[in-house]
C-alpha cells in the first residue's frame, strides 16, 4: 500500500497482527554483565557508588545490555520495530519518546547473562498533539536471567506526521461581531468570499464601516459594490500582549487602504517579517465557522 492508501482501520488491523504475536522470543544480550561496560557507564554518568565496582550492575543499565548495536537486522523481529515500520509506510514518519517506566526486581551481577523479550501493548490514536497528528505506541519489555524476571520497562513513543500542528488556540473563541440590518450585508458577503462596500444608491458614495444613512446626501437608499480585494497597508502593529481570545500571538494587524479608497482593519497573515506601510496586500478570507468569515489580508509578493 502507498501512504495515501493507509486508513486508520488498516493501521489498527496491522497493529492487531503484531499484538497477536504476543511476547517475542527472548533475545540474549551480546555480552554477559561485565565490569568494563559498567565502568564506562559509571564514568559517563558520574556514579561513584562502591557497590558498582564490586560485582553489582547499576539497575538503570538494564537497557544497555540488550542494545542492538549497529546491525539493524537484529531488531527486525522486535514488536516495536515492526510497528514503527507500519507507521512509516502510513506516513507517520516522525518519532518522539514520551514515557519510559522501568521496574527493577533484583540487582544483576557480573557474569549473569540477561535476555530481552518485548510485546506490543497498545496503539492509541489518532491524536492531534502539539507536534502533529499521530499514534501513541506502547511496548512492554522484560529482562530475564534464565526464567527469572529481573527488570521490566513500559516504553511509549508518539509516531506522528509533523507539520499538521494542533492550533494552540481555538479560533472560534474570538470576539464575535455585533451585526444588525445596517451591517449584515458585509458579513453575508465575507461568507461568500465577497468584500462588500456600502454604496449610496442616491449619490454613489462608497463607505466603510457602513451605516443606515449617507453622511453626504442623507439618503437611506443603500446598496453595495464588491471590492477588488486589492489594497495597501496604511498602518499596522504587531500585537504581542495580552493574550487575545481565539488568536495565536503575535499577530500583525493592519489598516488597509482599499483600491476603492476606503480603509478596513484586518490581520495580515504572516505579515510580521514582510510588512511595511505601503505594502500591497490582497484579501484572504478566513472562515472561522459557519457563522463567521473574516476578511483578512496577505502580502502580495
Amino acid at each position, binding site marked *: 500500500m502507498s501512504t495515501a492508501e493507509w486508513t486508520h482501520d488498516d493501521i489498527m488491523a496491522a497493529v492487531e497482527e503484531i499484538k497477536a504475536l504476543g511476547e517475542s522470543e527472548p533475545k540474549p544480550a551480546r555480552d554477559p554483565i561485565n565490569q568494563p561496560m559498567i565502568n564506562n557507564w559509571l564514568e559517563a554518568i558520574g556514579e561513584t557508588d562502591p557497590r558498582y565496582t564490586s560485582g553489582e550492575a547499576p539497575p538503570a543499565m538494564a537497557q544497555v545490555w540488550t542494545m542492538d548495536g549497529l546491525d539493524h537486522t537484529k531488531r527486525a523481529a522486535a514488536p516495536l520495530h515492526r510497528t514503527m515500520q507500519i507507521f512509516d509506510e502510513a506516513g507517520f514518519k516522525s518519532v518522539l519518546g514520551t514515557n519510559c517506566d522501568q521496574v527493577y526486581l533484583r540487582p544483576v551481577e557480573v557474569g549473569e547473562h540477561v535476555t530481552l523479550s518485548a510485546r506490543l501493548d497498545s496503539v492509541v490514536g489518532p491524536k492531534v498533539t502539539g507536534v502533529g497528528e499521530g499514534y501513541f505506541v506502547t511496548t512492554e519489555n522484560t529482562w530475564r536471567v534464565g526464567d527469572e524476571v529481573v527488570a521490566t520497562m513500559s516504553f511509549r513513543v508518539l509516531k506522528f506526521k509533523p507539520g499538521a500542528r494542533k492550533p494552540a488556540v481555538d479560533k472560534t473563541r*474570538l*470576539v*464575535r*461581531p*455585533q*451585526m*444588525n440590518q*445596517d*451591517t449584515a450585508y458585509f458579513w453575508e458577503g465575507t461568507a461568500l468570499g465577497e468584500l462588500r462596500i456600502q454604496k449610496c444608491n442616491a449619490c454613489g458614495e462608497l463607505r*466603510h*464601516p457602513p451605516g443606515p444613512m449617507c453622511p453626504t446626501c442623507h439618503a437611506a437608499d443603500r446598496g453595495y459594490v464588491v471590492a477588488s480585494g486589492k489594497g495597501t497597508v*496604511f*498602518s*499596522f*502593529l*504587531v*500585537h*504581542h*500582549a*495580552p493574550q*487575545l*481570545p*481565539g*488568536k495565536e500571538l503575535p*499577530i500583525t*494587524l493592519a*489598516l488597509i487602504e482599499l483600491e476603492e479608497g*476606503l*480603509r*478596513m*482593519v*484586518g*490581520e495580515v497573515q504572516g505579515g510580521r517579517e514582510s510588512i511595511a*506601510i505601503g505594502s500591497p496586500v490582497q484579501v484572504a478570507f478566513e472562515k472561522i465557522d459557519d457563522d*463567521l468569515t*473574516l476578511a*483578512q489580508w496577505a502580502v502580495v509578493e
Partner: protein
Amino acid sequence: MSERTLSGKAAIAGIGATEFSKASGRTELQLSCEAVLDALADCGLSTKDVDGLVTFTMDNSSEIAVARELGMGDLRFFSRINYGGGAACGTVQQAALAVATGVADVVVCYRGFNERSGDRFGQVSQWAAAQVNTNGLDNAFTYPYGLSTPAATVAMQAQRYMHEYGAVSADFGAVAVADRKHAATNPKAFFHGKPITIEEHQASRMIAAPLHLLDCCQESDGAVAIVVTTPERAADLKQKPAIIAAAAQGSAPDQYVMTSYYRDDIGIPEIGVVGRELWRQSGLGPADMAMAVLYDHFTPYVLMQLEELGFCGRGEAKDFVKDGAIELGGRLPLNTHGGQLGEAYIHGMNGIAEGVRQIRGTSVNPVPDVQNVLVTAGTGVPTSGLILSV
C-alpha cells in the same frame, strides 16, 4: 468675549483621593466615598452641602449609590458622561455649567475603580464588543480581527505617525522618562522612588509594536474626587480656589472610540477641537501655560496632543520633547505628579487634582510662577480639557 461664557464662573474648591495601589482591598463604591469625603474635608464642606454629582462611563458606582452611602440630601444635578477617560475634564465642565447657571451649588466629580485588582482595562474589553448599541457595532469592524486592546488601537496610530513625521520609539520614551522622573519624587505615586532611563524604556518588552510596555500607563486601584462651586463660595473656603478659565469637550468628524481610522488623518483631531475651544473661552494661548497635565494613557498621544494643542507644529513634537523640555525645569513641564504612567491611572482625575495643586502651589513638584494650567482628558476618544487659573 461675549456675555455667554463659562470662563471664570466656577472654581475647583476641593480635591481628594484614596491611596493609589494595585489591590485596594475594598469595593469601588467605598473608594469613591472615601475620595469624596477627602475632597469635602479638603475645602471644609460637608456631604450636606453637596447638591450635584458627576462621574463618567466605566465607573461602576452610580451617583445615587454614592449619595446614599454618604447620607447626602437632595441632588439637584447628576450626570454621567460617555466615552470613559475622555470624559475626565468633562465632569468638571458639567459641574461648572451647573454651578454657573445656578442649577446646583456644590457639585462633586468622582471616579473610583479597582482597575488593576478587578476588571483590567489593559486586557481585551470583551464587553465593548458585546454591547448592543452603535459602539458595539463599530467594534465589530476591529475586535473580531484581534484589534481589541487600548494599546493596540493606539499602536496603529503611532506607527502611522512615526511614518509621516519621522518620530522614533525613543521620542515616545521621553514622555515615560519625564513622568517617571516626576513620580519618583511624589510619595503618593505608585512609582515613587523609581525613575527610569530611556534605555530601560527601549528595553521594555513589546506590547503592541511599536509600543513598549513603558509606553503604556499603569492599571491602578484608587479614587479621586473634585469639588466644584462658584468662585465666590470657593473664596470663602479653606483652600485657594482654582478658577475654571475654560472647560471644553471635543469630538471631530468621523469620530470613533479608539478606532477613528477612516478619516484622512488618523491622529487625534478631537483634542484639537478641545484646544481651540479652551483658547477661545479663556483668551489664553499655549504661551500662557507654565506647565500642562496631558493625559498620558499612551506616550504617543502626548506628542500628538502637543501638536494639536498648538505647543508646536505638526510633526515637531519629537523635537519639542527632547533634552528634558517636558521635565521639571524644562520649557513646558508635563505631568508633574508623575502622570498615569508614574502616579496612577485614575482615568485622568488625578491629573486634574495635580493641576489644582499647581495653582495652589502645593504640588510636590512645584513649577514656579504658575498662573494657568492646561489639563486634558483621554484622547483617541471624544475628549475634554480644562484651563485652571489662579
